[in-house]
């Protein structure tokens, strides 16, 4: 168990390394080390957060989500962070710290951890930012690529869509196709001739023009090599991406279990988390291990345990109970109404205050803990009975 855990963490580190290499190859200059990601998961110190602020800011600027005139030297940290928050907001990301910061800026250090930033990064990656960066970089490297120009695709309403214009259009399209073929063959011929001239000219004295073109060729060659490296890095990343998302899932778990009290304070500020929730539910299979240890207080699990049913299937997805605090009033009360049914609460569902909800949850937790202990006890008894039946069996402690 210990060893496999270690090998998993090594693998995760490698995978994050692949991501970092890809980010760096995509032209980002401030990519944190894989170790920094790990520290961010456990809300590492301010220097970790600082690196992620920088990374997020660069990504948002590169992808054109935010625009800042002097990207290199932002006036201050605050300015910087506001920009990132705005950019994330535009991509559809909503988090407590984005809303809460305005209330008290001093509080910011406490309320915002580097894990929040890591989650935001995860969001950006899941939204396809990586591919956007990649495309940009590829276009930079390969100048022969034709980028699709923004074309006005609006068809004039006055256009007569009768047979005559249709046939005319078909004719003209055919004409363009033929012209394209002619141009292609001309380019091919030109390339052949150039090749012949160059290969004939190389052994002889090198003129200035061929010197120039050979420099251009060398530049092209370097670009192509970069391009190949970039695509290879992307390929490597794609092959192990799943591991990253599993790890990211564990980050989400950490995030969701930790600050219960703070949440109730911030809930009124939080607006829409639906998108994030959808996102989370779409992520690849979650890690089971870490979640098992923190989901003991979940009510449904309690129910299942009572019934003596296997709960492993339930544990695969983040449960409603943990996302409750991320949602608006209504879903919260929805959940509570479920809880009410379960625990005979008498409160009206629509006017259920958060403090009472917390209380109820605490009560539920206590109940579930009690149940768990009972179950544990029963299990232990059962195990001892079973061992008692096996004669001549010796158990050696590890």
């Amino acid at each position, binding site marked *: 168990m210990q060893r496999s855990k270690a090998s998993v963490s090594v693998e995760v580190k490698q995978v994050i390394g692949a991501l970092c290499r890809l980010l760096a190859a995509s032209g980002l200059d401030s990519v944190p080390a894989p170790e920094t990601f790990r520290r961010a998961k456990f809300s590492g110190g301010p220097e970790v957060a600082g690196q992620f602020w920088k990374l997020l800011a660069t990504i948002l600027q590169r992808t054109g989500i935010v625009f800042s005139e002097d990207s290199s030297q932002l006036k201050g940290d605050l300015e910087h962070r506001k920009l990132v928050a705005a950019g994330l907001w535009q991509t559809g990301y909503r988090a407590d710290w984005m809303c809460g910061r305005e209330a008290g800026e001093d509080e910011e250090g406490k309320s915002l951890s580097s894990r929040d930033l890591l989650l935001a990064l995860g969001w950006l990656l899941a939204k396809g930012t990586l591919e956007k960066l990649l495309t940009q970089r590829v276009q930079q490297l390969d100048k022969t690529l034709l980028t699709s120009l923004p074309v006005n695709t609006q068809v004039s309403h006055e256009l007569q869509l009768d047979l005559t214009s249709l046939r005319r259009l*078909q004719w003209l399209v055919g004409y363009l196709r033929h012209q394209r*073929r*002619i141009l292609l063959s001309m380019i091919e*011929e030109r390339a052949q001739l150039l090749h012949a001239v160059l290969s004939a000219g190389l052994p002889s004295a090198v003129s200035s023009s061929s010197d120039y073109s050979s420099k251009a060729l060398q530049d092209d060659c370097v670009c192509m090599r970069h391009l190949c490296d970039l695509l290879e890095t992307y390929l490597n990343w794609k092959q192990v991406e799943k591991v990253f998302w599993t790890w990211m899932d564990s980050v989400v778990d950490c995030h969701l279990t930790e600050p219960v009290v703070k949440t109730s304070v911030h809930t009124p500020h939080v607006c829409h988390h639906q998108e994030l929730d959808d996102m989370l539910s779409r992520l690849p299979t979650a890690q089971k291990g870490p979640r098992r240890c923190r989901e003991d207080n979940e009510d449904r699990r309690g129910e299942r345990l009572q019934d003596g049913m296997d709960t492993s299937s339930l544990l695969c997805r983040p449960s409603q109970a943990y996302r409750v605090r991320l949602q608006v009033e209504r879903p919260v009360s929805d959940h509570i109404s479920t809880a009410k049914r379960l625990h005979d609460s008498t409160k009206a569902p629509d006017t259920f205050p958060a403090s009472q909800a917390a209380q109820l949850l605490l009560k539920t937790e206590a109940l579930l803990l009690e149940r768990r202990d009972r179950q544990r006890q029963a299990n232990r008894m059962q195990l001892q009975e079973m061992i008692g039946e096996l004669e001549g069996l010796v158990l050696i402690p590890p």
Partner: protein
Amino acid sequence: MSVVTVQLGQCGNQVAHQLFDTVCSDAQDGQRKTYCTASTERFFRRSSQGDLVARAVLIDMEPKVINHCMNEAAHSGRWSYGDTSHFSQKQGSGNNWANGYCVHGPRHKEVVEELVRREVERCDRLAGLMAMMSVAGGTGSGVGTFVTQGLRDIYPKSFILNHLTWPYETGEVIVQNYNSMLTLAHLYQLSDAILVHENDTVHRICSQLLNIKHISFSDINKLIAHQLGSVLQPALTADSHGGYSRNPLGELVCALACHPEYKLLSVCTIPQMPSASIAYSTFSWPALLKHLRQMLISNSKMEEGIDWQARPPAASERSRSLTGANTSLANLLILRGKDVYSAETGGFEDPGLYTPWLSSGEALNLWKSPVPFNKYEKSATVVSNSRALLRPLDHMVRKAWNMFASRAYIHQYVKFGISEEDFLDSFTSLEQVISSYSQLC
């Protein structure tokens, strides 16, 4: 820019051989060095001894015609075929399209494609491929279609022109209409343009204009080669910027066959007369062009017996049926000879000649060459994408359909793998072509 010719079957080999002969003697006739160089580069390569070798691949399922062609060319002393550029078998396709398309074609695919590839690699730049064949028999039509299909796959960007010889309406092959129909239907999807010569028309020209008493295939082939040569020899085009055009097939296709439903091209040439009379005749551009224009309008392929009553509708008239005039989608007018730049071609710009959906500026293209072609002091050719071939095509499909309705000879095709379903598909696609050309007005 060079054209690689693929000669398929008996007819294709004979016509192509004649074409090379015509082109070669025409190019070497005068003192025009540029013209000669351009023509030679287009159709020939130089062997290691410096002799002209046709850029051609000869394919037949019987060795006789190929051997004959190679010997004739070698004995001409002017040019020859490549020693290894031919492929033949001992047994023919038995006038069965299915035998050629389903059996011989696939069986010899690699060999044939390798021959073509070698010839293509010998071109500095490939202008396109020209497959020449008849549609009536089994090898030209069946193997030809299969080979064209393979070429389309290998050279998706290259222009492929198919030259087809249509059989006499009362031909000697009983299933010629089946073969023609299957060939045309398949080629319509593969080829960029299909240039057609009808044996009947060519025969009439030989008999009435050239005064040949006993018309042989050689006479017919010579005439076809003359008309083809007048199209394919170097000319100054709108895109060639003062030099001879380097892309004959591409420009031909661009000028005439941009619409996927209209690919059938017909040719008429003026003047055509016995070679003995040429020396005693005088030609004037206005007279030649006036005749050629009327030939185009009245849809007659020779200047004798032109219906002078046919006229294009004036702008006010919307109905063409009354005037009996042929409608063109696009025309390519090629003038060769003395004082070519003084020729007045305004008569071909009449919007009444064309469909309303293309302006006459787009529909008419003009190629010129100051070099007289094939001993004619002045000559004019029009390649036309028009309703000219509608009637013979309709005849062919109708006859084939009548036979198909009684399931005559179908089993001969089924046994090689062409099902009735395939027949029906081909009928459908040709009916579409007929309908498209019928709507051309």
